[in-house]
């Protein structure tokens, strides 16, 4: 299909304006707000001040940051541990089976993730399905406390973010040339050696991409922490939400948002640097692989 130049220009301008109105402007508003002074009745007022940023250094918030990094990291790790074998096995199926499996994995995503988090909350309750099942099977004598624990938050984050791990990994496994594994075998590498010396290095871009795509949003998923972790400021996302909706300190909430965005930007930048080095080192972008 061929697009006329005017159509193409229109399309470009439309998407640019969309981005400007719904991404750029809100971010700029947040940025400006973060430099204003907090005021309980008017949310944010002049004059400009660095107050909000100064308060970010309060050890209380460092604690939130560390908690937040820890939970996100654990969720990322769980996603990787589950997603990697899953993607590996899936990549070995025929395209038909693979499409069905991916489809099944994606179906739940047609339901709002907030609703799915509520569902998890029910399942993990003291009288929830998980405990009932364990009790019925005789594995435990009394209900174990699942809901409102760190475990619950990590579980919820893992559950919601898993597909974001699997998809880039699948792409990596797709590009992995099976004949390389045969070559390694031919040269005497056993399954373990093939895994660590060939499969892992060659799927590294997928691993890094998957981890970032899971890790970055995990820090902001306040509703998961709210619903499954109880009323504590577990994630940076909770902290920000509370500043806006509960404490009504908009400059501070904005400053925390800006800090989170900067943190993500740094991670993304590191990712692109690493990626460039990997592809220079001998290429996943190499056409000869496929």
């Amino acid at each position, binding site marked *: 299909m061929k697009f006329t130049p005017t159509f193409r220009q229109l399309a470009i301008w439309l998407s640019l304006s969309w981005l400007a109105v719904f991404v750029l402007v809100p971010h700029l508003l947040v940025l400006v707000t973060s430099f204003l002074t907090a005021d309980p009745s008017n949310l944010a007022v002049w004059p400009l001040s660095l107050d909000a940023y100064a308060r970010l250094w309060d050890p209380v918030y460092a604690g939130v940051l560390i908690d937040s990094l820890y939970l996100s990291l654990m969720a990322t790790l769980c996603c990787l541990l589950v997603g990697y074998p899953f993607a590996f096995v899936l990549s070995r199926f025929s395209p038909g089976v693979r499409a069905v499996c991916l489809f099944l994995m994606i179906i739940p995503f047609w339901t709002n993730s907030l609703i799915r988090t509520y569902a998890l909350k029910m399942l993990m309750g003291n009288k929830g399905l998980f405990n009932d099942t364990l009790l019925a099977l005789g594995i435990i004598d009394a209900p174990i406390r699942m809901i409102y624990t760190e475990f619950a938050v990590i579980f919820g984050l893992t559950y919601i973010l898993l597909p974001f791990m699997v998809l880039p990994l699948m792409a990596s496994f797709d590009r992995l040339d099976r*004949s*390389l594994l*045969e*070559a390694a*075998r*031919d040269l005497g590498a056993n399954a373990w050696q093939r895994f660590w010396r060939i499969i892992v*290095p060659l799927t590294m871009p997928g691993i890094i991409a998957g981890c970032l795509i899971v890790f970055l949003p995990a820090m902001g998923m306040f509703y998961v922490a709210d619903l499954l972790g109880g009323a504590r400021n577990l994630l940076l996302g909770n902290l920000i939400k509370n500043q806006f909706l509960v404490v009504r300190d908009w400059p501070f909430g904005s400053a925390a948002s800006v800090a989170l965005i900067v943190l993500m930007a740094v991670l993304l930048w590191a990712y692109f640097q690493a990626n460039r080095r990997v592809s220079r080192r001998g290429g996943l972008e190499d056409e*000869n*692989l496929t």
Partner: protein
Amino acid sequence: MSEASAVVQLSSVTKRFEQQEVLREFSLSIHDGEFFTILGPSGCGKTTILRLIAGFEHADSGQVIIDGTDVSTLGAEKRSVNTVFQSYALFPHLTVFENVAFGLRMARVARTEIESRVKEVLEMVQLGDFAQRRPEQLSGGQRQRVAIARAVVNRPKVLLLDESLSALDYQLRLKMQSELKHLQRQLGITFVYVTHDQEEALSMSDRILVMHQGQPQQVGTPRQIYESPRNLFVASFIGETNVLNAKILRALDDYRYEAELEGRYQRIIHADRRYQPGDDVHVLLRPEDLRIEYLRDAGDKPGFVGEVKDRNYTGRTLDSIIELPDGLQLRSSEFFDEDDPDFDYSINERVWVDWVHGWEHVIPAENLNR
């Protein structure tokens, strides 16, 4: 040669993929130190044989014996053979040096020895200066040499090569053919080479196995295969051949017979086995076995008379198609000689044509429409 000198032996191997039987009761014996080529059209099972020897596939029945040991149940990582893959399958994340060192590292060879052996083999394939390059930074021919180096550095009993040259352009392929042959002599390793290119097979091999639809057709030296093909498939797959149908009329002595060719020409033919009067045979004539002369020069010599239908100058040879009165077409190929006026036949000119007697090859008749 005796079975004792066989370094690779397949005995009664049957291999099925789903319902399709690719090899059936297939046996093969490859001698130590030879350049053995498996030749056949696409899909005839060449790669399957190689993968059975390498250990990537396992036979449904029958045995694979390497160097006197039954390895039928061993995986590829435990066999003392190495493969040069058609796509080279170089590890893209490793340097040339690390690619070549891979097998030695897996075998836990000492670091200093790895260093010296890899260097030595890279020198041998003339890639000494490329050790720190990545595969993507090499040309096709260089990658090919890395693939060979990566395999031979392990000093395998047998080197398996699957259409290793087919991805290269014509010039490079010729060069690599002679390099491969040279390397094989130098190393004394048994090479099992798979190709569907008959010229390549003829020029490189000590012995050739011709395959067709999973069935071995003939095993022999290039010369045997070319000059004494055992059946029509081998004859027509290796080079061009004129096939004449004939019936034996009577025996003159053990190997000379009077025969009727194409139901109308009575000629004397030489066979390498006995036939009875009444037997149907094929007389195979290579294009270069044919001689063409002007009618006026030929006089009454026995031979065929036909019309020149096509003349094609290929550089070294002049190829003609001669049509006999009954419609049968003969292909001839004569070495081009600028001083020889005989090369000036024109299209549709009637000429005399015959073969050099004794150069024909006679095989029992087969159903041509198989």
